[in-house]
């Protein structure tokens, strides 16, 4: 890859901020260096997500880094200096890349598909747990049926879509707002109402979220 072997000057946090806020050559050089650092970082960070040794990856990484650089420059004033600047920049870039990869999967499959049990439609990164016994399996199946009914019939479609987008797909309220063509404040309200409604519905069944969770984790 073209960017391999390029030497990048090290900078302190303040030097990064100064150079990126400067005009002309210092800014251009800092942007070029940061670009190189972030592309190299993505190759490591996405190793378990996609094949990072293909020509296609270079184009994909370029897109992710360009988008991340825009965010980084936009959010420069919010960098508090509690971490290394490059760590903060890597975090933003990795988030952009994973969100885009996740969004692509989300767009490729309908919500119905995600909720369906078709194998491979949605593969969570849950830690494997030990297999429950027959009694626990029955209890879990009953609880599952109960909670499923609440989710499918107790929440509005908008509430369900927003909550699943937030919790399952990791989208931010801003991203959900864009996807659902709503204002961000309305999404916050929608999520609040969805949580409240779900908790209330569980209570009516004599359940709490912790009890349901415990039944699946026991």
């Amino acid at each position, binding site marked *: 890859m073209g960017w391999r072997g390029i030497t990048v000057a090290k900078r302190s946090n303040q*030097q990064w901020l100064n150079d990126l806020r400067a005009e002309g050559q210092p800014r251009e050089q800092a942007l070029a260096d940061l670009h190189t650092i972030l592309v190299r970082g993505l190759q490591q960070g996405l190793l378990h997500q996609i094949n990072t040794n293909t020509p296609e990856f270079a184009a994909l990484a370029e897109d992710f880094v360009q988008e991340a650089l825009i965010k980084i420059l936009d959010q420069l004033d919010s960098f508090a200096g509690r*971490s290394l600047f490059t760590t903060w920049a890597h975090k933003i870039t990795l988030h952009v890349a994973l969100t885009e990869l996740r969004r692509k999967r989300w767009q490729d499959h309908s919500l119905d598909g995600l909720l369906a049990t078709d194998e491979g439609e949605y593969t969570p*990164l849950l830690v494997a747990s030990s297999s429950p016994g027959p009694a626990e399996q029955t209890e879990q199946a009953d609880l599952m049926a109960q909670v499923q009914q609440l989710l499918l019939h107790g929440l509005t479609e908008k509430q369900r879509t927003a909550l699943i987008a937030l919790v399952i797909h990791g989208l931010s309220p801003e991203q959900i707002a864009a996807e659902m063509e709503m204002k961000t404040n309305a999404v916050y309200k929608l999520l609040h109402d969805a949580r409240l409604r779900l908790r209330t519905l569980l209570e009516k069944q004599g359940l709490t979220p912790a009890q349901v969770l415990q039944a699946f984790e026991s």
Partner: protein
Amino acid sequence: MSEPIGTDIVQRLMRHLVEIEAGKLSCQDAFALLDEYADLCCHQKEAEKIMPLVQNHLHQCPDCQAFYEALLAILQSPEGANND
């Protein structure tokens, strides 16, 4: 939508409700602190003692844990430390 919702989805929704109720760090809160936490880990400092809420969230949230591990993979690579 008559198809059943998977166990993993129910578990994660319930965990989300529990965390919100308990005032634990949300994924967004944890994300905001993750670069600092990762740097502490990379510099042999006791991140779990300095930032226990982040560690607790990572232990309970597989997605954030996966993100954190990807970030660590970047930082621990030979090309990861490009900051004085």
